[in-house]
């Protein structure tokens, strides 16, 4: 920009005049008034009830995910907070629970079943079908080999002592009841729950 000395002084004067007008309260009030608070980020998010993954208290949580479950959308979790209708925590969460979003997105989170064959050193990714079939097969083999139908006195006991089960704590009362019934129906004696940990 080619500016003469006189022109520069004129421009300085004009700048001063304009900024003085602003200082006197003639600023563009209208434009600034358009500013508002951050938009509420859950307005149209999908809300899903669930149980916290962590401890045995089993707090109810609300998982908010982006997208309305339309066919072409892959939902992803954007926010998690306490479920106010859940009798255990009534909306509250501890610091770990309040930070659950970061466990959902953690790069080290296990999201698929992995299998390490006997003698192998590497874990390899397998399908759920493979994992469940393998577990079922091994359980059946072990149960068939070691099931105790009657004790020494001839009383029916239906014990299966050689396999144990550790259930997760993130289960509702009903889910825990069903799990318990299932394990006991198989004759499993060694049965514990992470809720005791």
């Amino acid at each position, binding site marked *: 920009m080619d500016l003469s000395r006189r022109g520069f002084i004129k421009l300085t004067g004009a700048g001063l005049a304009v900024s003085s007008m602003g200082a006197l309260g003639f600023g563009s009030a209208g434009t*600034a*008034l358009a500013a508002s*608070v*951050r938009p509420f980020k859950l307005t149209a998010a999908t809300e899903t009830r669930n149980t916290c993954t962590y401890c045995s208290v089993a707090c109810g949580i609300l998982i908010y995910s982006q997208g309305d479950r339309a066919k072409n959308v892959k939902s992803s979790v954007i926010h998690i907070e306490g479920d106010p209708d859940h009798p255990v925590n009534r909306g509250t969460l501890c*610091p*770990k629970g309040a930070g659950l979003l970061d466990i959902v997105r953690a790069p080290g989170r296990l999201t698929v079943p992995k299998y390490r064959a006997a003698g192998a050193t590497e874990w390899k990714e397998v399908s759920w079908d493979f994992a469940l079939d393998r577990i079922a097969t091994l359980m059946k083999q072990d149960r068939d080999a070691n099931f105790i139908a009657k004790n020494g006195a001839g009383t029916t006991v239906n014990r299966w002592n050689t396999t144990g089960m550790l259930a997760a704590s993130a289960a509702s009362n009903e889910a825990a009841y069903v799990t318990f019934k299932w394990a006991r129906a198989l004759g499993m004696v060694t049965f514990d729950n992470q809720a005791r940990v």
Partner: protein
Amino acid sequence: MADLQSQDYIRRSATNLTPPSARHHELEVAKLIDVSRCIGCKACQSACMEWNNLRPEMEEFQGAYENPHDLNPGTWTLMRFAEYEDEQGNLEWLIRKDGCMHCEDPGCLKACPAPGAIVQYANGIVDFISENCIGCGYCVKGCPFNIPRISAQDHKSYKCTLCSDRVGVGLEPACVKTCPTGAIMFGSKDDMKDWAGERIAELKERGFQNAGLYDPPEVGGTHVMYVLHHADKPSLYSGLPDKPHISALVGAWKGFLKPVALAGLAFAAVGAFVHSIVAGPNETTEEDEAHARLEMEKAKREGSAKS
């Protein structure tokens, strides 16, 4: 969009215009922090960062329970831990959730020179509108509680918004909702005062004779209040001001000096205009020009002699 728009403003930084304030039957809200029920679990800190999508830098351990060691642009609320020994030698662990107090008479807003960078809504929330922030840091100086922090990334000021986006749609702030012991409560300011009254009576029964509510009148009351077991000595709680006050400089700068400076500006402008009418521009005479030409030639000769 949330509904807290300009019509909800009751104060706006660096503006002489009164905001429209059409919606004046707004409920005044308050957050009540019952220090005596806090266990220092930091769920509020965690929930605050989660809701506001903040993940501040990891820090080194500083030898204390505070984590991070101080408020920063990504940590809008912080648990502060103080060990206090009373006259009988009993150790008390005083844990205080630090953060913006949302003053009725906000020092940050008074000090702010950027129009609309700090606003106060009719419900009492003091909010920073980052878009208008110029990052000058005056709010830091103006705050009686040392809360705002300037970001090194975008040079704008940040602090707790009292989750204005949640409150705007009828929800409680994230820290309040998560608090597992119920040490943080939220509701209308009147309800919170009533609640605090009951709790203080309870604390007094239990031997905390000086239990009381921290709602300092020096800043017109606050929309974040504390129930303290030692309300006579708030400074025990990691330096909570006994008598918070907005720096006298802010008052002088914005109250007394501003009109003086504006008068000075106006005087200079009027003076310059009058001068240009009366005296006109600086004219040179033929004599001056001739003298200047001589000087120039002399300088040129000297210059060429040197080289």
